[in-house]
């Protein structure tokens, strides 16, 4: 053992003294013989892309969050015209603190708000509903039969008579619980939004919409009047507004990483360069995105941070290698080249694994995730240049501080001086896992954890698990607003719309309505369904209306003429103008995956049984319908994606190590982490959804870096004839140190997100921190333990083969 370490240290020194500038790969010669050009080129690129990055837009497009090829969404698109106003709806609740809304000032405020928001860009004006909109009508019953009119009495002047008339109209409009609260203390302005503004043809600007809404709230809210706003557009707007805080957390994380790196190196120069190169990578990425026509959405905002984090990890490895070589006495250029030579391949493989891991996210057929995957892959690709090439070249000019260089070798030096096997206690502890006893314990514990984690992970749910907008904290302004609306209005914010196309003019046939009625009652019988709305309800109420309001007539009439005569009173969202399309709007208690699954199952089974030429029953529109489709896609993609990520990682590891045994050592710890991460999600009540899906893939992608760095050096040692313990201990001193460094810094840095006001960032922070740390432990403990059982030193003859690592040369 003592001999091994002595030789390892000496071999590096030998190599430093015998360095040949003409040696090395053609890539190395290309870069290092044109160092200045590389730097100039990078500086230019940074300037150009940095300028480009300024034009990067934040956006949260509703369309791009839809799984476009899912049958539900295809159905929704096919009937988009008839469906207008069922998906992306903004609800503005204007509430009074007084006893009721029936006083002139309230009505005036409501009218002004109504007139203002009606003109906002992107509003689908023909479907706006509020008591000030003429489309909102009442139907009344008198001795003579049915009467109807606008809810807002014509010539409304706020007088007590008019106020009484309005109240009466509201009571018979069927809008109580829909756009007027049952306690008469608030009303809703309901605005469907179009993804593309009708007037300008531009995509809807959610940030601008959010600013308008907040401004509206600030101007009209008063002692008397409170304004509550819900809807996808508000969530998106709040998220985008919250991105400034994300940037704040980015800064905190960057600060922590820099501080820890400096504490480790005690070298301003090298710390600054590693951070600089990582930031350059982020700048390039942010510049490339608008160039390629991409925007940053609330999901892909995470990518720059990940790129920075990965960059720090690789940069620290390069810098550490160079520092150690300088410590051994090499000139800075030689040190840089040697490190490049030793670690470029490992770094490249790791980054390629990351890039492939992210690219695999593209199997998820949701545009925002594809954007995220592409941005992440691009960012990691950029890192190959900035942190594997530019950083060593910059370090070859600046070198590192002499004191830091000496310090970096202290662990090795200590052994050399004492002449005894005095190892650094921490590294020595990790080295124990290469011995049978500790290795067995580690493998058994890992297996137990794996089995336990697997059992728990079967509980993993897909989709959002909490009421309101799960992207935001339960106590966020938005979710408080949402809770207010849900508690006071029968129509919940989770709507699952069944589409029922029929031949033109035949939507109201009795046989068709019988089917609608049957499906509706099946849906209403589900525990997750609060209520349903369809033309059948109108038809039944219509019969009551024809019979002077006697509730005994509440039934779907067999008389086609009386059904048809009710059609004019049907809410527009339940029936189209050509009578060729019906909907059932299902209002849900929540949007948990199980609720959505139960609804989809009923609708699909009903369609299989009763679809005919006269009517088909198609899922699904409405925000809950979209979420059902998204969950479906996410559920399918989740396993498929993990399989692909692992296939890619296994392949890349095999290409690098050329040893199946080594692949097993590298990949098994990752799998354990993936399983435990899913168990953690179960424990924390986090479902697999658009926002968390990438975390699992990213965890594997970044986790493999640690294994690649540790195992590359260990395997080289083994091939050189070292014992496993010797090779592993050497790799700990060389790359393992930095694995600990980056694992800890990144873990701490992303853990700060747990304090984020945005819920999904907090979730992601916790999960990513867990994955960073656990993958680090896996690479340092489980990997050598598995190595004990799987890896053997090579016979001495083989060790003389071409090997890029220094000790191989020395052997």
């Amino acid at each position, binding site marked *: 053992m003592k001999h091994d370490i002595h030789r390892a240290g000496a071999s590096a020194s030998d190599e430093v003294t015998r360095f040949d500038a003409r040696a090395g790969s053609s890539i190395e010669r290309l870069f290092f013989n044109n160092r200045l050009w590389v730097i100039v080129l990078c500086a230019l690129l940074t300037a150009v892309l940095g300028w480009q990055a300024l034009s990067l837009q934040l956006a949260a497009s509703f369309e791009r969050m839809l799984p476009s090829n899912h049958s539900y969404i295809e159905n929704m698109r096919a009937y988009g015209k008839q469906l207008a106003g069922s998906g992306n709806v903004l609800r503005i609740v204007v509430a009074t603190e007084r006893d009721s809304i029936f006083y002139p000032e309230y009505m005036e405020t409501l009218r002004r708000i109504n007139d203002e928001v009606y003109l906002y860009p992107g509003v689908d004006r023909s479907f706006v509903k509020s008591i000030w909109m003429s489309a909102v009508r009442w139907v009344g019953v008198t001795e003579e039969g049915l009467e109807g009119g606008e809810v807002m009495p014509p010539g409304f002047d706020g007088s007590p008579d008019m106020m009484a008339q309005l109240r009466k109209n509201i009571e018979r409009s069927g809008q109580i619980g829909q756009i007027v609260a049952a306690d008469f203390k608030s009303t809703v302005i309901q605005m469907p939004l179009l993804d593309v503004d009708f007037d300008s043809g531009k995509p809807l600007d959610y940030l601008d919409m959010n600013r308008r809404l907040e401004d509206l709230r600030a101007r009209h809210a008063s002692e008397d009047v409170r304004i509550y706003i819900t809807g996808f557009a508000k969530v998106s707007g709040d998220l985008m507004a919250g991105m400034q805080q994300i940037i704040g957390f980015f800064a905190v994380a960057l600060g922590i990483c820099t501080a820890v790196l400096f504490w480790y190196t005690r070298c301003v120069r090298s710390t600054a360069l590693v951070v600089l190169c990582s930031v350059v990578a982020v700048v390039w990425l942010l510049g490339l995105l608008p160039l390629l026509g991409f925007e940053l959405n609330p999901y892909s905002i995470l990518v720059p941070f990940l790129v920075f984090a990965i960059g720090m990890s690789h940069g620290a490895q390069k810098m550490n290698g160079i520092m150690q070589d300088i410590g051994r006495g090499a000139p800075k250029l030689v040190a840089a080249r040697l490190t490049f030579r030793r670690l470029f391949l490992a770094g490249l493989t790791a980054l390629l694994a990351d890039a492939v891991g992210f690219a695999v996210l593209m199997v998820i057929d949701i545009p925002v995730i594809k954007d995220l995957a592409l941005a992440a892959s691009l960012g990691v690709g950029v890192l190959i240049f900035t942190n594997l090439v530019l950083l060593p070249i910059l370090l070859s000019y600046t070198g590192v501080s002499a004191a830091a260089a000496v310090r970096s070798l202290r662990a090795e030096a200590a052994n050399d001086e004492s002449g005894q096997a005095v190892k650094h206690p921490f590294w020595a502890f990790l080295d124990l896992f290469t011995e049978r006893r500790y290795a067995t314990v580690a493998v058994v514990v890992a297996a137990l954890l794996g089995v336990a984690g697997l059992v728990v992970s079967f509980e993993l749910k897909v989709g959002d698990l909490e009421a309101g907008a799960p992207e935001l904290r339960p106590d966020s302004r938005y979710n408080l607003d949402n809770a207010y609306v849900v508690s006071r209005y029968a129509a919940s914010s989770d709507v699952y719309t069944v589409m029922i196309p029929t031949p033109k003019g035949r939507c109201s046939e*009795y046989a*068709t309505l*019988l089917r609608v009625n049957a499906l509706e*009652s099946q849906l209403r019988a589900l525990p997750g369904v609060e209520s349903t709305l369809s033309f059948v309800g109108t038809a039944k109420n219509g019969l009551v209306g024809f019979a*002077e309001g006697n*509730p*005994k007539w*509440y039934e779907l009439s*067999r008389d086609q003429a009386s059904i048809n005569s009710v059609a004019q009173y049907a809410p527009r969202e339940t029936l189209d103008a050509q009578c060729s399309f019906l909907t059932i709007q299902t209002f849900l208690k929540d949007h948990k995956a199980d609720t959505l699954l139960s609804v989809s199952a009923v609708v699909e089974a009903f369609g299989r049984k009763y679809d005919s030429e006269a009517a088909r029953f198609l899922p699904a529109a409405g925000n809950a319908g979209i979420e059902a489709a998204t969950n479906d896609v996410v559920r399918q993609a989740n396993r498929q994606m993990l399989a692909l990520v692992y296939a890619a990682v296994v392949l890349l590891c095999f290409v690098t190590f050329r040893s199946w045994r080594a692949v097993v050592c590298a990949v098994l710890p990752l799998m354990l982490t993936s399983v435990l991460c899913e168990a953690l999600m179960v424990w924390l009540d986090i479902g697999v959804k658009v926002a968390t899906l990438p975390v699992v893939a990213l965890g594997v992608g970044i986790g493999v870096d640690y294994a690649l760095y540790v195992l590359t050096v260990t395997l080289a040692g083994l091939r050189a004839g070292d014992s496993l313990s010797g090779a592993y201990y050497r790799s700990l001193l060389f790359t393992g140190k930095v694995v600990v460094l980056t694992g800890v810094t990144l873990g701490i840095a992303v853990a700060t997100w747990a304090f984020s006001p945005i819920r999904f960032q907090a979730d992601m922070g916790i999960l990513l921190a867990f994955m960073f740390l656990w993958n680090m432990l896996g690479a340092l403990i489980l990997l050598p333990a598995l190595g004990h059982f799987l890896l053997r030193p090579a016979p001495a003859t083989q060790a003389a083969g071409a090997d890029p690592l220094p000790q191989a040369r020395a052997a």
Partner: protein
Amino acid sequence: MANRLGATCALTIAVGLACAALGSFAVDLDPLDPLAQPSAQSASAPAAFLVAATRAGDRLVAAGEAGVIVYSDDNGRSWKQARVPVSVSITGLHFATPTQGWAVGHSGVVLASGDGGQSWTLQLDGNRIAALPETGGEVAADAPPANPGDPLLDVYFSDPLHGHAVGAFGLLLSTADGGRTWVRRNGALPNPEGRHLYAIRPSGDALYVVGESGSIFVSHDHGTSFARVESPYEGSFFGLASPRPGELLVFGLRGNAFHSADGGAHWSRIDAGTGASWTGAALLAAEGGQPGVLMVSQSGEVAVSRDGGRSFSVMDQRLPSLSGVVATADGRALATGVLGVKAFDLPAHAGQGEGGQGKGS
């Protein structure tokens, strides 16, 4: 027989299917026809639109949309759903004994229960009604034929054998064998316009029927023949109650309610201060000789009378739209309506008769 086939064909045309000229009745129905579909069992049945409420002994029974019938043996705290062979809306309920009861509803359905409302069997439907010969006397020649889809709207059995059901367009059915056979007797009522008949209830030995356009009829021979009672109102009556023999309360459209202490000879108007239609009423146990009465309205008001129905006061509580009400065995009350069953406490006796005063007419 030809008549019956014709009716079946008319129905099947109405539901949009080709009419099979021959073949049994059930085959012709759309599989989702409410006459072919048993009422679906659902945990939310007590929250369905329940139109009617009554008592079978101490048991509460409520019925309404989609053939839902629910019953409670703990005064409305918990409910069970009855097995019902059809899923038409139920409009009327009556129990002749604590175990023997009848329910009527849309598509001319008559259901009977022999176990206090837990399970029901179909005795009659609109297709069979349409095939019944008219035996009630001379009906106007141009009176519309019975349409199989027309609803029955109320039912009353004076004993387990003798009962009547009334319905839309002047439909009157009678049985003398507990509903095994029925006769159609529209002509027994002087109702040439074929007004809808909404309720049938006795007062002492007399039997009253109220309905559309101020219709009030009385029979003094157990329903064999009816005479028209002069009406205090031209709008529709939705129901009636008899606090004591000879005393009548009729109520209906737009808050109109009238009390008579002499079997309908004189009426006094009841002003309870609401413009919403009264849809149901229930008698309360007599307190100090005066029976109490509850009325419920379409806009969810509950009005209480402590003076035998002469005056009412509207309770403070406002419920969703109501259509049925019944006193519970433990001194409370149960209302039914669009949002299902709702049990509530009655106001203390002291406040009787504050809200409205009976006015002589």
